[in-house]
């Protein structure tokens, strides 16, 4: 295991009541890299992210973030990480500004008002920043949620389906903001997604999961070449439906 990896998973396993969600995966993400976790429903993406965040304890194996073992040493690094996920919401009755202020307090952000103003500007939140979060459209909520994930200038950013339920225009706009944040901050980004366009555009590496195992792990370009496909979507379908194994068996 490299001590320099921003995120390092080693033989990570998670079993829930006899069902194996993650079955011994290993990978290392260098600082400043942007990687996609790709896989169908139940492939183990969200469980892997939950273990990286220290939210779920691995059944066996280890995971470390910025040199800290998760979940045992999570409080050494949680203030340097952040995440966005469709599985959580922000309190609906609080306004966007109030929510951002509370999370700025939790993450120990210096000069929270200035940071919130900057993010409101970058993510175009100004028109609805004093509106209750529950009254926003799903696109607006996602923008707020992504803005929250950048409040503390995270060095490690975990994104679980960050553009799910967004229209193509807003999704593209959010991707642009994430790309810019990564370029400026040099943060390490791990992105779980079903959206192949998003993965092709943002990620330099793709880890393909199937039934809790890593089926493939390479750059988008090399994956396309290896599977002889034009798009990552076709590669995804090959992996999901086991076409590669079938083709290799036939050969």
């Amino acid at each position, binding site marked *: 295991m490299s001590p320099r990896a921003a995120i390092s998973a080693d033989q990570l396993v998670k079993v829930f009541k006899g069902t194996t969600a993650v079955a011994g995966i290993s990978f290392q993400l260098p600082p400043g890299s942007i990687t996609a976790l790709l896989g169908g429903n139940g492939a183990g993406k969200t469980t892997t992210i939950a273990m990286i965040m220290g939210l779920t304890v691995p059944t066996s194996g280890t995971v470390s973030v910025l040199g800290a073992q998760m979940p045992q040493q999570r409080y050494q690094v949680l203030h340097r990480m952040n995440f966005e996920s469709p599985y959580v919401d922000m309190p609906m009755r*609080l306004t966007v500004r109030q929510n951002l202020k509370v999370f700025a307090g939790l993450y120990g952000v210096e000069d929270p008002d200035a940071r919130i103003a900057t993010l409101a500007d970058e993510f175009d939140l100004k028109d609805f920043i004093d509106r209750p979060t529950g009254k926003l459209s799903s696109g607006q909520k996602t923008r707020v949620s992504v803005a929250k994930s950048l409040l503390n200038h995270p060095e490690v950013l975990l994104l679980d389906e960050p553009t799910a339920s967004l229209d193509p225009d807003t999704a593209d706009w959010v991707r642009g903001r994430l790309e810019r944040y990564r370029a400026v901050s040099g943060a390490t980004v791990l992105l779980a997604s079903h959206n192949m366009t998003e993965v092709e555009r943002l990620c330099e590496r793709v880890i393909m999961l199937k039934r809790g195992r890593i089926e493939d792990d390479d750059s988008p370009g090399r994956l396309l070449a290896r599977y002889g496909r034009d798009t990552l979507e076709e590669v995804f379908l090959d992996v999901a439906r086991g076409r590669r194994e079938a083709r290799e068996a036939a050969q």
Partner: protein
Amino acid sequence: MSAYPQTQVSFSPHRIGAMVLRYWYLLRSSWPRVVELIYWPMVQVLTWGLIQIYVAQHSGFFARAGATLIGAMLLWEILFRGQLGFSISFLEEMWARNLGNLMMSPLRPAEFVAALMVMSLLRLVIGMVPVFIVALAFFGFNVYQLGFAFVFFFVNLILTSWSIGILVSGLLLRHGLGAESLAWTLAFLILPLSCVYYPVSVLPEWLQPFSWLLPPTYVFEGLRALVIDRVFRADLMLGALALNSVYFAAAAFAFLRLLESARRQGTLMQTGE
């Protein structure tokens, strides 16, 4: 970007402040939540106040014993409302699907619990001060006339309420909203044995030792000693404090164990039923 590793302060008043601010914003934005804090204690004080007036029409011991009814009711409300204030603030996170955000933030369990204790006090002040005023105005019961004894009663009852609140929160973390009803009912489990409205001697002899295992029993016996016999029983208050220390530590331990169990089961992200 900084070199690893960095550490952060282990207990942060700023993070507690941020959580208190979160609940304050919520309370401010919702008048039904504020009304809910006041209306039930108000109904209780009116009911028990009128019963007390009726009992006071008799003479002798019963008249004096009757005077404890409204005091007992007010003290019980401190325990029950204190626990409810703690548990409801916790439930707000589950109802809002915000628990995952908090659990993946640098907020530590002790800070979360401290914020819930602060909110329990704030909600108690909002709910009970108008009720104390009504008790004084309509029934002549001035809770502050209990003097420094009231401080002992209050501290012991709020500690018991927090112990119950911490245990309920741990069960909610582990079992999700399926355990929600515990937040509303668990305190009532100890009501009969705590001897709120009657002395311990009323209980069958074999049950009395169990009653003395509960800190509120000491408080309510102390209240009766003060109102009926005009004696402050420091021994009872110390007994309650000792038991409360044990229960509070046990509840905190159980909370941490249940939180760890929730991490193992992966239930922190899905906090539904």
